[in-house]
């Protein structure tokens, strides 16, 4: 799949933003006043910024209002509704906390649940697609939630919790890469099943239907850059969790170290998300004899 910057930024940033919101909602750390204001500002900038970036992927953003209508069947629609609901509930919670000095805990819990549900709906947009075997697994949701919860903990400055969660995240990510590599083959799709010609012999493409690329090839058959996948996975695994954890554990604790850990983590998230798209093979590539 084409690793479009808009969807990479969208899923990465909004995941971090909603992850941070979930921690703030349950009241860990128990901030108030100006500190709470700063945390909520970061969470909202990330979540809203991510959502806005996603509209760059649309051919007709003006019609996006209709996207709230099909929650009964569409995960993308559910994601839209859930994210707006989270932003509203959390807004009320944050306003009371920051300006009135009251913590309405029930609202915080509700907001936190909504924030995590939003991340889950984002993951389901990808996990539901049978056409992309690498994504079509429950592990995709586990992965997205791990990113949000661990990244959120790091942003919230919860060093002890973040150390454990970042290591867990790295583990989940490595498992996802390993199992993902096998999924296309085990799903059993081939040019033979795609054309139904398997019983006549081995099929190969003789002539493509068009001489230059088209929307399908540009959007869904992305083969460039996969040869660097192993290097990128290594970079991602290191910056995602291992290096930030090393910084937080082995170095003297101060704000610079936390900031550095966050920067490294975000680099890891973007690299991993680039790979999430670039390595995903869509079955339509079979018709073109390339994946």
């Amino acid at each position, binding site marked *: *799949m084409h690793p479009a910057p808009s969807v990479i930024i969208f899923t990465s940033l909004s995941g971090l933003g909603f992850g941070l919101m979930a921690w703030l909602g349950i009241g860990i750390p128990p901030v108030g006043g100006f500190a709470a204001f700063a945390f909520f500002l970061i969470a909202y900038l990330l979540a809203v910024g991510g959502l806005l970036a996603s509209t760059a992927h649309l*051919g007709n953003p003006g*019609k996006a209002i209709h*996207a709230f209508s099909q929650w009964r*069947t569409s995960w993308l629609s559910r994601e839209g509704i859930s994210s707006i609901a989270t932003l509203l509930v959390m807004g009320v919670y944050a306003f009371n906390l920051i300006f009135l000095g009251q913590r309405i805990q029930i609202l915080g819990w509700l907001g936190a649940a909504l924030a995590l549900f939003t991340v889950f709906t984002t993951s389901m*947009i990808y996990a539901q697609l049978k*056409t992309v075997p690498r994504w079509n697994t429950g592990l995709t949701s586990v992965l997205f939630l791990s990113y949000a919860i661990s990244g959120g903990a790091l942003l919230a400055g919860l060093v002890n919790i973040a150390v454990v969660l970042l290591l867990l995240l790295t583990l989940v990510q490595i498992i996802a890469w390993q199992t993902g590599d096998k999924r296309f083959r085990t799903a059993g799709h081939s040019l033979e099943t795609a054309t139904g010609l398997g019983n006549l012999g081995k099929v190969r493409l003789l002539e493509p239907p068009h001489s230059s690329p088209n*929307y399908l090839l540009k*959007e869904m058959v992305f083969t460039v850059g996969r040869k660097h996948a192993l290097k990128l996975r290594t970079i991602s695994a290191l910056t995602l969790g291992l290096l930030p954890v090393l910084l937080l554990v082995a170095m003297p604790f101060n704000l610079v170290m936390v900031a550095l850990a966050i920067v490294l983590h975000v680099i890891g998230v973007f690299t991993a998300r680039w790979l999430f798209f670039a390595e995903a093979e869509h079955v339509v590539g079979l018709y073109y004899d390339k994946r």
Partner: protein
Amino acid sequence: MTALPQTTQKKLGLVIDLDICVGCHACVTNCKEWNTSNYGAPLSDIDAYGAEPMGTFLNRVHTYEVRQEGCNAQTVHFPKSCLHCEDAPCVTVCPTGASYKREEDGIVLVNEDRCMGCGLCAWACPYGARELDQLAGVMKKCTLCVDRIYNENLPEEDRVPACVRTCPAGARHFGDFADPDSNVSRLTAERGGMELMPEQGTAPVNRYLPPRPKTDIGGENKIDILAPFLEPVVNDEATQDQPGGFLGWLDKALEKI
């Protein structure tokens, strides 16, 4: 609503005969011609006369080579358009309600007034049957020529999809799969009409008729029907240096001088 209908009264669709298709791309051209000038936004072309021309098409023809161990290869031309799946994943993923499957005849359509061009439906389709128009930013797909098949302003013989009407080889057939006596149902039953990528669980309505078994594809008792007819030609070519008939006589006569 992007919920799929439980059942549809009719199941309109196409049978595509892979034994007959000659790969001429006439269906591609006529499909584009009809659909760029009728229903919805036109099918745009980008850089049409440049180095990398790109355009929106609702129907494309791939060409494959199939080879069995120890046999000659055979060429199969393979037209592909929307299969109007019964369990269409492209419809249920659509967040705006733009994509829908009609309860009355099973045709899968896009309401362009609602489509925001997110492209998720194209991701959900295993067959590459949906293309986002690069100029209009809306999703385009085969309409089964819904604006022809019910169109009483057209003469009766034209009330079939443009690709079916134009195919010079008669490789495309249009009909109702819900009716067991229809032309498409009978063809499917007689020739073993197959689904594409059945393991995706989309239950496509369109069916593909496999190429008929070839008698001259190699093996022990290889029979080549055309070979005897071609033999004189081949021999002529092989003996070009010593032509027969009048030329041969002339050749010999001249030689003697």
